[in-house]
């Protein structure tokens, strides 16, 4: 048997790489979180707006696609802040690289803008429309969009799904980071985006039907999230030395405390419990549960982003 590697020294001390990769900070965590949240918002609002209504939907639902766009812009702002060569940001749009999730993401983001904006117009209730038409000459556009309502909502749904998958794949395809080298990461981020989207909407006044649906969807998403996290850890257990290293970070390493307390307990377990109680006891909604879900979603990105950067192949023999 080979003796174990006991000492490794390297002369390399490159900034942002050594001793552990630390290229991406809060900007990317916020970007991934907002990307997931926006994806969730787009998907859920498209689904909720799908059915024809007698009454205009609640105000937050009317504005959901536009709010999503605002949040998406914030996210892209965070991404921009992270670029090391900000002057070259336009280079994302002088190429499309089909192998690069980053490239897909860049293009998905710009495709989402018109689709979500038009969906946003369609979603507006009569009051808001009237107000808007007074301010801007959008009558023709609105009429055209109204005619394509289903198609637009369908496109928004598709955009949301694409965005959600992309935020997961972005890290998940960077297989050089052992922690991210798991097929679960994409679905996990998509699901987390859905629960975040639902939680975000639940912060506002909704009609009862929508509220009930959202709470149920949120619970379902949280359960799926928990299952996916379990699957991720099981996956690591069967992935040799690399998996062991990845699992250690979450089960007995630097990121264990924050992962379990912030992501699992605060972000999943407690909200599930509270939502369950709310449904059973027909209690009035409070802002606490959705806030916890949102914070949990942010924590999930932040912790996995950091843990992943901490888990390179160099740590393997």
């Amino acid at each position, binding site marked *: 048997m080979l003796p174990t590697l006991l000492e490794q020294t390297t002369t390399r001390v490159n900034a942002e790489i050594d001793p552990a990769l630390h290229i991406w900070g809060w900007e990317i965590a916020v970007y991934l979180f907002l990307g997931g949240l926006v994806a969730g918002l787009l998907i859920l609002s498209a689904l909720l707006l799908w059915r024809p209504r007698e009454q205009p939907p609640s105000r937050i639902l009317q504005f959901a696609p536009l709010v999503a766009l605002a949040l998406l812009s914030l996210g892209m702002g965070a991404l921009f802040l992270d670029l090391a060569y900000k002057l070259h940001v336009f280079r994302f749009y002088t190429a499309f*690289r089909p192998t690069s999730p980053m490239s897909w993401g860049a293009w998905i983001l710009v495709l989402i803008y018109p689709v979500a904006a038009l969906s946003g117009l369609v979603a507006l209730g009569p009051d808001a429309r009237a107000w808007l038409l007074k301010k801007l000459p959008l009558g023709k556009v609105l009429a055209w969009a109204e005619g394509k309502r289903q198609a637009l909502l369908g496109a928004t749904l598709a955009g949301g799904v694409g965005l959600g998958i992309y935020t997961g794949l972005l890290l998940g*395809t960077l*297989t050089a980071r052992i922690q991210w080298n798991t097929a679960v990461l994409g679905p996990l981020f998509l699901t987390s985006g859905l629960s975040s989207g639902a939680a975000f909407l639940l912060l506002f006044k909704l009609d009862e039907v929508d509220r009930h649906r959202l709470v149920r969807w949120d619970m379902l998403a949280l359960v799926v999230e928990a299952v996916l996290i379990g699957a991720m850890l099981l996956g690591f257990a069967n992935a040799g030395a690399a998996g062991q290293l990845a699992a250690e970070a979450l089960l007995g390493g630097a990121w264990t405390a924050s992962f379990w307390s912030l992501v699992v307990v605060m972000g999943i377990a407690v909200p599930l419990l509270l939502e369950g109680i709310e449904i059973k006891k027909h209690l009035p909604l409070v802002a606490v549960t959705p806030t916890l879900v949102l914070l949990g979603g942010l924590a999930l990105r932040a912790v996995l982003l950091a843990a992943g950067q901490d888990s390179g192949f160099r740590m393997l023999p």
Partner: protein
Amino acid sequence: MQRREFIKITGMTALGVAAASSAVLPKDSQAAVDPGTDGDHTVATFCELCFWKCGVLAHVKDGKVTKIVGNPDHPLSRGALCPRGTGGTGLLYDPDRLKKPMIRVGERGQQKFKEVEWGEALDYVAAKLKDIAAKHGPESVAMFAHGFGGSFFKHLLNAYGSDNVGAPSYAQCRGAREVGFQLTFGTALGSPEVIDLENSRAIALIGSHLGENMHNTQVQEFAKAIERGAQLIVVDPRFSTAAGKARHWLPIKPGTDMALLLAWIHVMLNEGLYDRDYIEKYAVGLEQLKAHVADKTPEWASLETGLEASQIVDSIRVLAGARPAALLHPGRHTAWYGDDAQRARAMAIVNALLGSYGRRGGIYYPTKLGVPKYAGIPDYPHKFKPTPDKPKGKVYPFADESLAHGLRDASIPGTADYDIKAWLVYGTNLIQALPEPKKTIEAIQHLDLLVAVDVLPAEIVGYADVILPEATYLERWDDVVVTPYKEQYIAIRQAAVKPLYDSKPGWWIAKELANRLGLGAYFPWNDAAEMVKARLAAGKFDVDAVLKQGVALGARKPVFIEDGAPAVFATPSKKIELFSQQLADAGLDPLPKYTPPDEPGAGQFRLLMGRTPTHTFGRTTNNRFLSEVYSDNELWLNAQVARELGLENGTQVRVVNQDGVKSNALRLKATQRIRHDCVFMVHGYGHSAAGLNFAKGRGADDAALVTRIKVDPLFGGTGMSVNFVAIERA
């Protein structure tokens, strides 16, 4: 991986491969950006980041040196360089360089100076020197030097009337080896050592850490030998880089090398592993040697050295199995325990028994080219007074260079045959290069004059009365260098760029001083370039070719006995002296004896020091370019011991020696790579000089911890690995 493949495939399919590769893909830019570091011309010169003198090509672009590469025509570099060789730019463009002549205004050591013009500085020095010559005689001026540019100042000092020139590279470094080999074979080994490593089939190193000690050609040959399958035996308390390549690593207890050597000799003689014909033909004293080592069995040595007896036997069998192409490397820095010349003798004897002296893969007879002197330089008019480099009444019968520390000690009035009153210090930081730094500082306080010629403000410069800023090797011409080597060659140093700031080449400084001392006749040329070209022309060299190539090769001459080199031994007996009558006559041991080393006290470790490939002691630790890969020294300590002391790898620690001297803080390297009874650090760190803005305060200075020495009775060398330290958390 699968996901990356997946997205690749889906991506390509989604778009259609054709569409993807045409319109939406950007141009595939082919060319790499040329960083533009090639010079508009190159200047062939030789390096001075250490003293090996490898040929380099300096790339010069718009008057700046952009990079330095190896000169393929030069026999010492063969186109390749060690890491330091690339770092000439780090020296040339060091922002901390001495920029103007300065005269001291504060107390000695306060490092307070005023900038002056060259005229004033040189007038001051010349006036003082005249005064000292009148009062105390010119011999009371001593010079300390390290570096090829010192030749002009030695010439000046000789013309002035003193031959008291000491270099720490002798008594503090390679002296013991030179004495031991000279006593045995009649000739010292010099630098580059006249060893044919590349053809060795088996090599043994004792405390010599080739690979960390990066003398270019030697490491090139070392690697070549390994590539050719040479067997390697490394004797070192530390798992050195070389030990990592060895078939046998002998982690010897420090201070017991002699026991190992005697046991090796014992085995060689007992098992008949030595070269009988060679010894019979060329050596004297075999019978005395046999009797001397009769009881020096591997089992005996095992108890002394901490090595297994079988290891001792196996390793010498491997070495002897390859003779005569077998070499016990003579080492270089050998100033360890005070019996160093005798240890070198034992190493010489092993080489004699291997029959390696004068043989391919062993030690060769060097050859060199001649270059005529510059015509018209008068002979020195004086008979030099014997050097006062030892205490009054003391004799070191086999010293054949001046002892730098002895000249220092002679500066403390009344201790030597006569007092040294002034120092001219050229390129050697005596504060770190000599042991017992307190004594150095004390001696300085007694001087009438201390002149420092240097490039950087090292500690010793801070004590100077006058600082003369020299141009770096890339900015100056020096004399022709003639090196005894296995190939005949001469090389030149020529300026690649003009001197920066108000620095001046050494030749100019020496010549200007000579003019002021009325010794102008000794410097009849206008400048060094003219002098070098005249010498080359007089030697019938193609001057233009030499200027272009930086080097001129001579005809191949046989350097091995088997190729026809005469087997000459310049000893009194004209033979290899296994038994040394010279030593016996001087009342010293004619055959090397083993003395057990002192033991460290409880909680103490023997302090060992050495090199790192990227630095030449303290001379380069301010070099920011070289420091990109090694900027601070570490304290190596056995990992098990560190655990017992509750010290983790990477902890900042200090060491305290037996006399209470405490080091700077340095990082602990808790490692499997060293024995439990010693610690190791790289020499040349822990600078305190105010002007060394980069190096100041980095790492710890081993020299400051050398408050005790053991003096070698053969030649006065200073054994320095006799200090013990305890470790504390910083």
